[in-house]
């Protein structure tokens, strides 16, 4: 199966800016899905994409799969209904830093706590790109955005620490400078039962880079490669597999409730 077979090629060209990190995420996810559909690891008819609002949330609409483009910050709440109503669905949630950590922060921690069996891919580009470059909950302190013209006075969230604190069993962080590793991470997330969270540090050259000293997307990807490490290194952002444990997923716990109540049909 070709990558084109899993995409809605009638929707090209897409709306993303040149150099946008979401292109890498789209590319990597499409390749991983095409491979899995090809070798029968995954059924395309049972694979569902859910997203909120923002640039990254537009990605599901480019896949020739069932996809739900929902409201700002709420894709995990919609996914909770989809997955518990039909546990046979493989649910992938695509979100961003504003969507997941600001307006959707409550849904994020509760989905992690419940151990909802979904794969969350968070395109974390430190900025509200769709609305033109406002500060987000992951914008580094001191950085410039259209709403922090004097520098961001707030400290940022570490999204991986946040979801691990809420109980997420499988958490990884990669960047758009690591497409091969990111593809493997998505594969692991699809294999795991339970809440998998992949924080993808990504570039927004249009609305973040140009206001913070980056000349183009290439420079931003270089920065991501040079300033991250799979080991704990002073001054570098830790990437890699941050947690990989097993915990009983939410739908299996609901199944036990049905067994207790006698409604499991057996």
């Amino acid at each position, binding site marked *: 199966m070709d990558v084109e077979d899993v995409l809605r090629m009638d929707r090209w060209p897409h709306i993303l800016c040149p150099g946008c990190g979401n292109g890498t995420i789209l590319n990597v996810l499409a390749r991983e899905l095409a491979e899995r559909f090809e070798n029968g690891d995954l059924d395309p008819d049972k694979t569902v994409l859910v997203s909120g609002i923002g640039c990254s949330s537009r990605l599901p*609409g480019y896949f020739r799969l069932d996809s739900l483009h929902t409201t700002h910050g709420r894709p995990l709440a919609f996914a909770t209904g989809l997955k518990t109503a039909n546990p046979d669905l493989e649910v992938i949630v695509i979100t961003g830093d504003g969507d997941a950590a600001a307006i959707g922060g409550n849904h994020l921690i509760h989905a992690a706590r419940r151990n909802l069996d979904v794969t969350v891919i968070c395109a974390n580009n430190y900025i509200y790109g769709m609305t033109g470059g406002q500060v987000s909950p992951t914008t580094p302190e001191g950085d410039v955005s259209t709403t922090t013209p004097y520098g961001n006075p707030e400290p940022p969230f570490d999204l991986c620490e946040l979801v691990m604190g809420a109980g997420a069993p499988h958490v990884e962080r990669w960047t758009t400078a690591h497409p091969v590793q990111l593809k493997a991470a998505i594969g692991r997330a699809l294999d795991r039962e339970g809440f998998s969270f992949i924080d993808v540090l990504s570039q927004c050259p249009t609305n973040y880079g140009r206001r913070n000293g980056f000349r183009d997307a290439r420079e931003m990807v270089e920065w991501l490669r040079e300033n991250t490490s799979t080991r704990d290194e002073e001054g570098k952002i830790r990437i890699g597999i941050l947690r990989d444990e097993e915990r009983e997923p939410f739908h299996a716990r609901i199944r036990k409730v049905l067994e207790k109540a006698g409604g499991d049909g057996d």
Partner: protein
Amino acid sequence: MRDENGKVEFLQGNEACAEGAIAAGCRFFAGYPITPSTEIAERMSARLPEVGGVYVQMEDEIASLAAVIGASWAGVKAMTATSGPGFSLMQEHMGYAVMTETPCVVVNIQRGGPSTGQPTKASQGDVMQARWGSHGDYEVVALSPYDVQEMFDLTVECFNWAETLRVPAVLLADEVVGHMRERVVLREDVETVDRELPPEGEEVERPFPLEPDDLVPPMPVFGRGHRVHVTGLTHDERGYPCTDDPEVHRKLVRRLCNKVRKRAGEIHESVGYDFIERDSDIALVAYGGCARTVLEAAEEAGVTMFRPKVIHPFDEGLVRRLLDGYEVLVVEMNLGQYYEMVKMALDPDCVHLLGYPGGYPPTPERVVEEVERLGG
């Protein structure tokens, strides 16, 4: 105990609502505790697992309706229940359910507002919010039960109309009917309606046709090969975002409204209403818990009484046919919300209001006093 139609029980209105939902085929409930609706969630958490259904208590009301919509796209009939403050939070997803044409049922056991208001007291203050609480132009179905039996029966009707029209349907009840206990027949003969589906395993190329015959397209189900993209953005026939073509937006929004408006008469006929005609110049109009004392007042004063069960869509033709020529007194537990719609249907000078917020319906004596003031 049983009668010919089913099991007879002595239940609270909220419990009867939960039983009606299960009889209608509801197999998913997501909610958040709030007075005076909580008993619905409690009953559903006990009953749904017995029939193979799923109950989830969400982190808030916004998430509750989101999960319900998600379950509905998984092909399962789904419901949530709340009261005013929670209904306010749900408005975001009322709009999303309208735009994505997702059948679902939202129960609002109204309490006094604005804001947290009177948590344990009855109100009918959300009549207009049920219609247009979310942004944009749209229409929904809202039904108002006046006793415990109707808490069961109209919950079934809400599911049936939600499935028929692919809209969110609101059971617009109030604390009076939610918390009272009465005899109720848990009918086993309920007629249920299921949404029309596209053929299984086939990709649906035009899931949102701009002008389908009966204005309601068949609804794809996630996981069955329909491969559909669903968005809250203005979308074209393929379901793809299309936000800058005025004609596409106009056609979509007109269809979303017309599929409900054009069937207003049919909905009123099928759900029913009470019209007790008496030889009088005055007619009383009341619905929901408030209608209980007003029905008594109408009998006492010997005047005509109209009790609608369908609040939205409003059927102007019906109201005109029944009430034209009367001096009409609308009695409701708010400052005049249904009243405004009645005024638009009739000669406004002949429509009067006894607006009665505060937590309790007016006594029959209070209503009769008002009838006498009008010369009845």
